[in-house]
């Protein structure tokens, strides 16, 4: 069995001390599956120990329970934030390494197989026809960067491209970019998944394919900047693509980072009063994965009349929405419960709306609101910002 170095080296280093279970200094739960199921094996420490068991031959990847423990992690990296022992990031690296081992051994989850088949057929994990990817932008008169030059490429990502209820974020983003006079284009139907979700479920081969494709496409288009609305996409471009040693001739910014920049440079101004009390949810991939905490708050604070109230678990100590790491597809009940926990926390602030900056988070919060009968509206920052123009 081929064991990734990170698994071999670090799965013996977990002391099982339990630091990963709660946010240090807040003393509040940090791990969604651990907090829901309680048994050790659902926490980071349990998964790392499972890694040791697999290496020792005491546990097998073919065991459905082993697979379930490995795949109920949302890869939110809250454990990595808390752990005082392992070098930062290594816990989720170990878990993802174990998932890669499982895939190599032919041990996969049916829900993930569907995602991979969809990727291969449609270039997205949502089982949506590839041809429909650019439909959201019909009638906007946007240039296609494959044929026309543009300084900035806007990347809607899978969810905003295919889910009609989520398209508002992409449209709002374009409205903002145009209002700031940005020379922007899109890939339209040629846009492809970032491949990050494939990486997270252990499908490294698929991930590499998309990383190479996307880097080549944006390099060939000659754009200086790729702006993404998806926090997952941002962190995969920034953290995973760079591991491949492929040259990227462009920078990648999340929409909130770019908005922050445009506002700072006075290329964009908000003029409409928005008398709304909101709380902000830090997406794990934007926050803990990419370290972007201030930009979204800077943008929100510039909106006239808008009041930002913070949840106790915020920034590095943010509770996950539950959608990441392939959990939403394979374990929807866990995913929705995790989101509902966050909605309850948001409600406790007295906010009239929950704002975030990741379509996966937004989508999962909306699904959880439906499931649990919540009436707290959920917005992407771009939607609120566009209303304030």
């Amino acid at each position, binding site marked *: 069995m081929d064991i990734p170095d990170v698994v071999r*080296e670090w799965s013996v*280093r977990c*002391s*099982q*001390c*339990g*630091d990963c279970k709660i946010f*240090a200094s807040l003393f509040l739960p940090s791990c969604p599956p651990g907090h829901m199921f309680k048994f050790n094996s659902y926490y980071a420490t349990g998964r790392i120990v499972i890694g040791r068991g697999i290496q020792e031959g005491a*546990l097998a990847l073919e065991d459905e329970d082993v697979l379930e423990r490995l795949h109920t992690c949302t890869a939110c990296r809250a454990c990595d934030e808390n752990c005082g*022992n392992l070098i930062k990031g290594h816990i989720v690296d170990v878990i993802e390494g174990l998932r890669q081992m499982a895939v190599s051994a032919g041990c996969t989850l049916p829900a993930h197989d569907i995602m991979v088949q969809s990727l291969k057929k449609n270039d997205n994990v949502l089982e949506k026809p590839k041809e429909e990817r650019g439909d959201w932008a019909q009638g906007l008169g946007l240039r296609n960067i494959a044929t026309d030059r543009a300084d900035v490429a806007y990347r809607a990502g899978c969810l905003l491209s295919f889910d009609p209820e989520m398209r508002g974020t992409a449209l709002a983003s374009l409205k903002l970019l145009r209002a700031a006079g940005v020379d922007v284009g899109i890939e339209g139907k040629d846009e492809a998944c970032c491949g990050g979700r494939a990486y997270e479920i252990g499908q490294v081969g698929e991930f590499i394919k998309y990383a190479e494709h996307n880097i080549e496409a944006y390099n060939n288009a000659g754009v200086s900047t790729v702006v993404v609305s998806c926090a997952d996409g941002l962190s995969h471009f920034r953290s995973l693509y760079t591991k491949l040693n492929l040259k990227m001739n462009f920078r990648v910014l999340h929409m909130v980072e770019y908005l922050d920049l445009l506002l700072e440079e006075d290329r964009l101004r908000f003029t409409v009063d928005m008398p709304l009390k909101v709380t902000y949810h830090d997406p794990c991939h934007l926050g803990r994965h990419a370290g972007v905490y201030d930009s979204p708050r800077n943008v929100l604070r510039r909106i006239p009349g808008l009041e930002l109230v913070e949840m106790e678990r915020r920034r590095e100590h943010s509770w996950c929405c539950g959608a990441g790491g392939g959990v939403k597809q394979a374990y929807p009940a866990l995913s929705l419960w995790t989101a509902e926990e966050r909605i309850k926390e948001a409600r406790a602030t007295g906010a009239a709306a929950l704002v975030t900056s990741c379509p996966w988070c937004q989508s999962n919060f909306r699904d959880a609101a439906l499931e649990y009968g919540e009436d707290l509206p959920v917005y992407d920052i771009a939607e609120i910002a566009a209303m304030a123009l």
Partner: protein
Amino acid sequence: MEVEVKRMVMEELAKIVGGEHVTDSRPDLYSYSRDMTEHEPTWPDFVVMPGSVAEVQGVLRLANREKVPVVPYTYGDNVGGLTIPIKGGIILDMRRMDRLIEFNEEDRYIVVEPGFNFGDLRRMFNEKYPHLWYSFAGAPATTSLTSNALLNGFGRLTNIVGTNADNINGLEVVLPTGEVVRLGSCSVTDSWCNRPPLPDLIGLFLGWQGATGVVTKISLQLWPRYPFKQTRTLIITGIRPACTLARKLGQTRICEIVECWSFERAQPDADTTKAFQSEEERQLRVYTPAEERKAGTVDRPPGPDRMGLVIKVAADSEDELKAKLALLDVEIKAELKGIPFEELPKSLGPAEEEDLPAAGGVPLGGLTWVGTMGPTSRWAEALEKIYPVYDKYRLRRAAVMVPFRGGHYGMLRLVEQFYKGDPDEVARVAKCMREILNVALDHGFVPYKAPHWAIAEMMRRGDPAWVELLTRLKKMLDPNNIMNPGRYGDIKG
């Protein structure tokens, strides 16, 4: 356990606690089979999470009927292999029972269930009771208040409080045969305020490592959090002057804690004159894995030991603090006359109480110790014999000494961090710890949170009448020997 019996027990457990709170799944069992120590893992047959006293009673009655071992468990972060189920059976994970039963601000005590942990209490202090404090250990925030106290754990108020077992006012216990009993003032009144003056039966459950019953509620004393504090850190050359000063400072009773430690650094040439800016930097500079592996065996260069002495003083007023610090100065000058020492600036000192409970500190995966309590007057003598044992096994010297309750007795803890991926290192650590235990016992130091092999050694050495009494008590409370077998009361020496 026979397959049919196992299936029947599993079904009954599910009826008692609900199917989602019991497991016999292999990854679950494996993750409860081991801990951070060098002890060999042993698999349990089931892990059960009760949610109420009635469920605990149900589990114990079933286990008693079927003679299935039961190991009480909270968060599993002990350093003694205490929850490794030596004879299999049920791990009774108590973390679902995490309720605060009573917070009595006026009489300064708290009644909680076993799943209530250090972090929960610290959060309550932060939110509502900034004037109160607890003897928090330098342990993870998930550490159970109940387990810590029952196992004679201690925190940062040791020179006032002693161990946290000394903090206990009362207990509610489910006996191995399923009856519920309350001990302390709560046994005859509705108050959980005090432990004396009744015959003290709480001792039947203290230090027994769960071998006599399952504690389901505990009342613990709270302490004032003083507004004026100061920490001083001295680096002293030589074991004897450091140990003597620690003992004397304990006896003055002006300190919340006096902690005397000696840790050989992973990188002997690491620059210790600069503060670490972050945990990552600390890891890289002192515990960098690559460096650590190079130093898998340590050959200590000759020369005197450098000992650290951390002294924490607290007071109600600035004047009181000044007076205490002045007295401290007098003692330090008197005891260290002619002895080389330096005082570290505050920025280089240890973490303040704000950081408690503490995180991290075990970057190699392995941590074990021979933790003992005994006469502070024999610290130096014992340590001078123990350090060569570390050298013999080519391990890093590491000891901590702390006086308890005004220095009437004290802790001598011989610690070792080790890399779990190296079987040779693990084996050396195991042998070293066993040899150290004997030296400690020879000098009057008795192990707490004792691993089974340390209990066996005490039974071998101990007064036969004491051993017999332990065995009789265990038999009386636990006739079928289901509670954490292979430990106290189940080893005759």
